[in-house]
């Protein structure tokens, strides 16, 4: 009986249904055809979870096979601060109680500004298992607190060579910015300072991961894929652990003895800091490197807070973290003389056959102001040839050579082309240049020249904007504006020792793969340089002979009395206004074919022959395998 009107009304219903289907189909078309890639990606993000597999950082071995930096397992507590919410205080006090640490320690870690809030900040290491179990059972009391079995650094040789090792720490916010794209994530550890930083690329290793399939509850349903972690490579360094120990002991003893010595003003020498470096002049391999005061690298394990770190770099405390071998810039004093002598020879300022008077004082011939430059000795000596000038360390001879270099410089000054042959020659020995040592920070020192004076003048620290005679005179005995690091000095002496070959000091010997076959060398390290020196063999041998005379009959003769080995060296006493002298000694052994160059510096250590020379003697005795003699403070000669 369905009438026509009902049929028409049914069409309304049918039309509504058609509209419904249209709406649904259009939306499905959008979701499943047009936008499907987006949703597929979201679905994948849903069910695939990447879990990182930690890698293990490479170890560091000494040349004689001793592990000097190892890993040890530790249970670490970390806090992700953005998960703490309003409970930060409560969680801090709970952790304090649980871990038995001072509240300040934990609070400091939690407030460390070096990390992003979402980064897990290490709060404590070597946490007992029982504490972690407690946190695990009371998750709600510890929001944002996680724990991890981590590998931390271990130093089986204690403080030995602490200054070159560096340390590791979690990456900071600034590192994440800087190293974007290099595969660092907020959980990673990075090498800082020293070899850890320098060889980060090899030591680091690569994290692996496991791709898990997870369900909505976050439970792992299966493994989708896996990448094994690649352990970091091991680093072998040129440090000889026994020689290093001997050098450290010698410096310590030498400084200790020096503190019993009275200076010319009647005060005990402070001898509060120093450095020793031993390197192979042929290869540049650094066999020992000591800096005092020192620190315990173990302090850095588990993270070091800013306050403790500041203490390690506080100059009033001697800046223990500061590596004086590469960063200590000192006036080299008379250890500089061989290079002045060689430049004088090269430039015709001096010649081997000639003898030069050695008065007690020197005046610049044209100077009317009456400035007097004194020799270290108050009696007239000489005359000496070049070798003799080195052996007796006669300052006044060098003053005159310095003045002659000034005379060469001065006439060309106005021509705006100051020829500076002395400075050029000194730079060729590596002064005022980076030695290229494989450490992240190195000071380059200074050689006074026209540009330097102009800079000083611009900064209103100099009265003239060009070099005056006094600068050359001071430079000739390694004073004035001259600054050099112990390592630069050792490198320069190496060039005399090895017959004029340029050499790059280095600590790394080789990088070894610890994952594949044991000890496979991934990368041998032998840096080369190609700027050999323009000195003849006989010129260098002649200077070397002068250094032999230093030991035999010169300024260090008393120090080396009874010494049975073969050694050449040079004393140095660098003066600083209102401070005690710095004691220097640079040496090479054996003389015929030097295998070791040794440089020692003791700040406020008095004369070179007094403190630094006995230290070097003891190191060389260790090298020669003879019983080390007691440190006997030498005579007060230069």
């Amino acid at each position, binding site marked *: 009986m*369905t009438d026509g009107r009902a049929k028409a*009304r049914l069409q*309304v219903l049918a039309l509504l249904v058609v509209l419904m*289907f249209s709406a649904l189909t259009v939306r*499905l078309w959008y979701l499943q*055809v047009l936008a499907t890639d987006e949703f597929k990606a*979201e679905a994948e993000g849903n069910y695939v979870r990447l879990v990182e597999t930690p890698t293990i950082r490479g170890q560091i071995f000494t040349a004689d096979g001793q592990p000097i930096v190892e890993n040890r397992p530790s249970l670490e507590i970390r806090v992700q601060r953005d998960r703490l919410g309003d409970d930060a205080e409560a969680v801090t006090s709970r952790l304090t109680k649980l871990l038995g640490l001072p509240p300040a320690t934990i609070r400091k870690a939690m407030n460390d500004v070096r990390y992003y809030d979402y980064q897990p900040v290490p709060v404590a290491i070597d946490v007992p298992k029982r504490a972690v179990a407690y946190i695990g059972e009371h998750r709600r009391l510890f929001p944002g607190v996680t724990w991890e079995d981590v590998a931390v650094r271990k130093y089986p040789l204690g403080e030995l060579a602490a200054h070159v090792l560096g340390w590791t720490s979690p990456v900071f916010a600034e590192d994440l910015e800087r190293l974007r794209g290099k595969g660092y994530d907020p959980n990673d550890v990075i090498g800082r300072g020293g070899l850890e930083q320098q060889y980060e690329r090899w030591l680091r290793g690569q994290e692996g991961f496991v791709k898990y399939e997870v369900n909505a509850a976050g439970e792992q349903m299966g493994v989708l894929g896996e990448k094994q972690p690649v352990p970091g490579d091991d680093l072998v360094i040129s440090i000889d652990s026994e020689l290093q120990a001997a050098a450290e002991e010698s410096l310590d003893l030498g400084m200790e003895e020096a503190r019993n010595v009275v200076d010319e003003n009647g005060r005990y020498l402070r001898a509060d800091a120093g450095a020793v470096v031993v390197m192979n002049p042929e290869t540049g391999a650094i066999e020992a490197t000591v800096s005092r005061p020192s620190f315990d690298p173990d302090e850095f394990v588990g993270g070091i807070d800013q306050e403790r770190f500041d203490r390690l770099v506080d100059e009033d405390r001697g800046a223990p973290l500061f590596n004086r071998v590469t960063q200590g810039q000192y006036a080299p004093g008379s250890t500089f003389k061989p290079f002045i002598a060689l430049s004088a020879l090269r430039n015709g300022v001096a010649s081997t056959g000639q003898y030069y008077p050695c008065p007690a004082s020197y005046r610049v011939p044209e100077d009317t102001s009456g400035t007097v430059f004194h020799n270290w000795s108050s009696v007239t000596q000489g005359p000496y040839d070049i070798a003799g000038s080195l052996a007796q360390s006669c300052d006044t001879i060098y003053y005159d050579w310095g003045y002659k270099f000034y005379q060469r410089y001065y006439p060309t000054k106005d021509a705006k082309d100051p020829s500076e042959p002395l400075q050029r020659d000194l730079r060729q020995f590596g002064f005022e240049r980076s030695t290229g040592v494989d450490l992240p920070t190195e000071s380059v020192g200074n050689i006074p020249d026209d540009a330097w004076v102009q800079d000083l003048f611009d900064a209103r620290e100099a009265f003239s904007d060009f070099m005056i005679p006094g600068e050359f005179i001071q430079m000739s005995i390694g004073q004035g504006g001259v600054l050099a690091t112990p390592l630069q000095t050792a490198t320069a002496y190496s060039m005399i020792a090895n017959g004029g070959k340029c050499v790059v000091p280095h600590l790394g010997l080789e990088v070894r793969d610890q994952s594949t076959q044991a000890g496979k060398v991934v990368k041998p390290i032998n840096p080369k340089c190609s700027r050999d020196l323009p000195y003849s063999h006989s010129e260098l041998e002649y200077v070397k002979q002068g250094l032999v005379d230093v030991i035999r009959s010169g300024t260090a003769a008393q120090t080396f009395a009874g010494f049975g080995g073969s050694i050449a060296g040079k004393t140095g006493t660098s003066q600083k206004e209102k401070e005690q002298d710095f004691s220097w000694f640079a040496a090479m052994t054996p003389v015929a074919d030097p295998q070791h160059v040794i440089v020692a510096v003791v700040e406020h250590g008095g004369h070179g022959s007094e403190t630094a020379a006995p230290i070097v003697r003891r190191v060389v005795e260790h090298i020669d395998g003879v019983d080390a003699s007691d440190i006997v403070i030498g005579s007060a000669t230069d």
Partner: protein
Amino acid sequence: MDLVAGSSRALAAERQPIRHIDLTLVVAAGLLASAGLALIFSANRSLAGLGGIGIDPASNVKKQLVGIAIGAILMILVATVDYRFLKVYAGFFYAAAIGMLILVQSPLGTNVNGAQRWFEFGGFQFSPAEVTKLAMICLLAAMLSEVKAPDLELVDVLKAVAATIVPMVLVFIQPDIGTSIVLIAIVVGVLVVAGARARHLVAIGLVAIALAIGVFQLGVIKEYQVQRLTAFWDSESDLAGANYNRDQAEIAIGAGGLTGRGYLSGTQTNLDFVPEQHTDFIFTVAGEEFGFVGSVGLLVLFGVLLWRAIRISYLSKDAFGTYVAAGIASMWAIQMFVNVGMVIGIMPITGIPLPFVSYGGTAILTNLLAVGMLENIHMRRFTGRPR
């Protein structure tokens, strides 16, 4: 004789309703139910995998099969008895439904997740709200088919609305917002086909909205009741949860792409990211594992189902049949649209199952019963007709 006997037999056969069964409708319903079984299996496999030791992934499939079997028997039973008896007993069905809806609120009913919706016996649950929809359709059709005027007067419309409000409120307080919406759709659908004037419907709609707002504003309903109700569809407190459900459902559908990720291979489905997946969100399984092709295929089956229902309404020999069929068509249409719409993000999240496909014994039973009613109308579209 032969000829006469033959022709009288032929006439008898012509009059036999079974000859006029609508196979297309049954096949469409059967295909939807079968697809449902496959999708329920896929959706539940993950639950079993979810550390549920001893859970049979096919247990819900088996229960659903039982529902289908009972539903098929009821369908045949309902189809055999002339549907005009439904008109006679419409008032009784209605009263019985109201009675069950009241009873389910008593301790005899079971409370699941805060909703008092089910009677439970022997591992099976019976939801009176489902069958209420059919009782409602019968009552409305019976009432309105008695109106002889070509168009409905306001009083007829109001009577129909009044009859609907009683079960609607009872369902609403369970709470079951979804079924309330379906009941509204049914009454609107039947009224439209029965000739209600548009302005009446609009006026009633406006009054209903005003009343609903007033009831909440004046605090006629107690605070905790409001909370209980609102928590179900638009609660701020559960907004994150609802958004999560919707997002996961959309991801599942979208990740399916054109052809799907393969049966039992959907990660959203297998790894349980989509909630309530064997019931209200069953469409996501089809969408993820069979893609656009599968989703549209399912919609096509619904299209066939609705086309046949509307066609039966159209062909019915009397107004009662027309209205019953129109009511059933409205019921299925709104359920399909709201369910799929909420899964793909164009409708709000309400708990409405997808007819024939979603897991649920009473629902499949009710829907098969509705198929039986439609078949009944279809088969008897010639009988008793004045020639």
